[in-house]
C-alpha cells in the first residue's frame, strides 16, 4: 500500500466527513432543543440536492449563488415541516415526534417520487470544480477542497453566531433549559423554528455537496446518509455542535478507511460497520466524545 493511496483515501474520508458533519449539526441542534430525532432530516438533504440541480443545471446560476439558493430552500422546507408537523405536537412524549418525523420523511420522499420520479439523475458540475490540483504526492479535484472549506466556513459561522450574538445566546439558553428560558422572555417558538431552519439549510448544502462529489442524485438518496449522520451526531455527543462536526469527520474517515484498507470482501459490510459502531458507542460512551451527561438514566 502506497502513501499516496492512503493520502487520497484520507481526503475522501474528510470530504465524506464534511458532509456527515453538516447533516449531523442539524440533528444535534434540533435534538438539543426539542429532544426530537428528526428522521426527515435526510430527506431535506435530498431536497437540497435537487434545489442545487435546479439552480445549477436548469437556472444556470453561478456556483456561489446556487449555494445561497440551496441554503434558503433547505431553511424553507425545514420551517414548513416544523410548523406543519412538529409544532402542533409539542409537549407530547418523545416517541410521538419520532413517529411524526418518519411520517414526514415518507411524505417528502413520495412527493419527490411523484413529481420528479425516482430515477437517479446525473449532477454535472462546472468545469473549474472538476479540475485537478496537485497536493503533495497526489492530485485532488477542486470540488473536494471546496466541500471541506465550505463545510468549515459554515460551521465556523454557525459557532460564531451561537456563541457571540444575542439570538445565539437565547438559543443556547433554550437548549439548556426550555422552561426557564421561556420565563426569561425568550420566544421559544422562534428559537425552535430557527434551529430547524439552520439545521435544514446546512443539510441542504450537504445535499449539494453530495451531488457535486458523486455526480448522481435521487429523491431517495437521503435515507442512508441521514441515518449515518445521526450516528455521527451520537458519536460526537448529541446536542453539541462541535461534537456533531467532530463525529462527522471521525465517522467519514473511519468509513472510508474501513472500505479502503480492509480486504474487499469486507467492503460490502460498510453499512453494518457504521451501525455496529453506533451501538458500540452508545454502550461504551453514551454521551459521545464531547457530550455532556445531562440525560437522566431512568
Amino acid at each position, binding site marked *: 500500500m502506497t502513501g499516496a493511496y492512503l493520502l487520497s483515501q484520507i481526503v475522501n474520508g474528510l470530504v465524506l466527513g464534511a458532509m456527515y458533519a453538516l447533516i449531523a449539526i442539524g440533528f444535534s441542534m434540533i435534538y438539543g432543543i426539542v429532544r426530537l430525532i428528526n428522521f426527515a432530516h435526510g430527506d431535506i438533504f435530498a431536497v437540497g440536492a435537487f434545489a442545487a440541480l435546479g439552480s445549477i443545471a436548469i437556472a444556470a446560476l453561478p456556483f456561489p449563488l446556487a449555494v445561497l439558493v440551496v441554503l434558503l430552500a433547505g431553511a424553507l422546507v425545514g420551517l414548513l415541516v416544523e410548523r406543519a408537523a412538529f409544532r402542533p405536537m409539542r409537549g407530547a412524549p418523545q416517541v410521538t415526534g419520532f*413517529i411524526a418525523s418518519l*411520517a414526514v420523511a415518507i411524505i417528502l420522499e413520495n412527493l419527490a417520487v*411523484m413529481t420528479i420520479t425516482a430515477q437517479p439523475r446525473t449532477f454535472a458540475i462546472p468545469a473549474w470544480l472538476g479540475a485537478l490540483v496537485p497536493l503533495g504526492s497526489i492530485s485532488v479535484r477542486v470540488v473536494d477542497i471546496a466541500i471541506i472549506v465550505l463545510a468549515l466556513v459554515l460551521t465556523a459561522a454557525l459557532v460564531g453566531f451561537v456563541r457571540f450574538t444575542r439570538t445565539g445566546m437565547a438559543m443556547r439558553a433554550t437548549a439548556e433549559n426550555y422552561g426557564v428560558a421561556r420565563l426569561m422572555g425568550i420566544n421559544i417558538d422562534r428559537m425552535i423554528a430557527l434551529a430547524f431552519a439552520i439545521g435544514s439549510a446546512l443539510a441542504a448544502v450537504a445535499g449539494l455537496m453530495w451531488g457535486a462529489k458523486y455526480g448522481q442524485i435521487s429523491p431517495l438518496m437521503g435515507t442512508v446518509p441521514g441515518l449515518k449522520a445521526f450516528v455521527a451526531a451520537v458519536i460526537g455527543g448529541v446536542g453539541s455542535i462541535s461534537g456533531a462536526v467532530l463525529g462527522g469527520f471521525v465517522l467519514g474517515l473511519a468509513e472510508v478507511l474501513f472500505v479502503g484498507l480492509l480486504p474487499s470482501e469486507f467492503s460490502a459490510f460498510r453499512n453494518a460497520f*457504521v451501525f455496529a459502531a453506533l*451501538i458500540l458507542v*452508545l454502550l461504551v460512551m453514551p454521551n459521545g466524545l464531547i457530550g455532556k451527561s445531562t440525560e437522566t438514566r431512568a
Partner: protein
Amino acid sequence: MSAPAAFLLRFALPVGIGAALLYAATLSLDPYSLTILQFVGINVILAVSLNITNGFTGLFSLGHPAFMTIGGYVTAILTMPATRKTAMLRDLPSILAAHEWPFAASLTAGGLVAALAAVIVGIPVLRLRGHYLAVATLGLIFIVQSFAVNLPGITRGALGLAGLPPVTNVWWVYLVLVLTLLTCWRVKHSSLGRTMLAIRENELAAASLGVKVARTRVLSFALGAFFAGVAGGLWAHLVTLIAPGSFSILLGFQLIVMVVLGGTGSIAGAAIAAVVLTLSTEWLRPIEEAAGLFGASQIIVAVGVILVLIFRPSGLFGTAEPNVFGAFARRRRHAQSTP
C-alpha cells in the same frame, strides 16, 4: 360463570366463528382476494406481536423487519428441497442441507432463531432508551441485510431465495394468527404482562418494587421477535421469495403506525389498525395507478398518522381493549339506573 364456560365464550367460540367465516371465504373468494386476506392476517400477526415489545413494555423497537428477515431465511432454507439446497447453497452445514423440514417445524425454527437473535442483540441494546433504542434497532435492519447480501453460500446473496414451495395458505395464517392473539392476550392479563406495563409506565418504580427490569425487557423483545420470525416465514412462503430487501424500514414504519393508531398496548386496537391499513393501501392502489400518482396512498397514510398523533395521541383505544360485552352491560346498567 365457570372458568371453562368463560374460556369457551371468550376464546373457542370466536375462533370457531372465525374458522367458519374463513371456510366460507375460501369457497366464495377468488385467489387474488384470498392472497390479500393472507397479507392482512400476516400484518395482524406482526402488529400484535410488535405491540408486545412496543406497546406493553414501551420499548421503541423498529427492528421487526430484521427479525422477519431472519425468520424468513431460516424457514426458507429449511423447507427447500434437499436437491436444490446442495446445488445452490454450498456453505450450508450438511445436516441442514440433507433434509427438508415440514412447514410447521420450519416456521417454529424460524421464530426461535429470530428470538435467539433478539436475546443476543437485546442484552446490550436494550440498555438504551427511547430514541437511541429506535435507532439501534433500525441499524439492526441494515446489519441483518448486510449479512443476507454477503453470505452467498447460505443466502444466495442479493438474488435471494426464489421459487420456495408455496405452502402458506389461509389456514396456516389463521392458525398462527390465533396462536399469536391467544399468547398476547394471556401475556397481557398475566403477572408478566402487568410487569411489562409497569416498566412502561415507570421503570424506576417498577425496579424498586422488585421487578426484574432487564430480564423482562429482553423477554418481551424476544417474544415479539419470535412472532416476527414466524410471520417472516409465512410471508416468504406466500410470495415464494425471500431477498435481503424483502422487509424494509418502510415496513417497520407501517407496523409502528399500526401499533400507534390502534393505541399502544391494545391488542384489538393493533389488530384493527392492521386490517384497516392493509386493506386501505390495497384499495387505494388501483386508484393510484389510474391517476398515475404512485406513492399517493403512502402520503395519505402518513398524513393520517400525523393527524392522529396531533388530535388523538393515545390512538384508537389507548391501552384498553374494546369490550363488547362490557359496553353492553354498562349501557343496560345505565338504562336501569335512570328512572
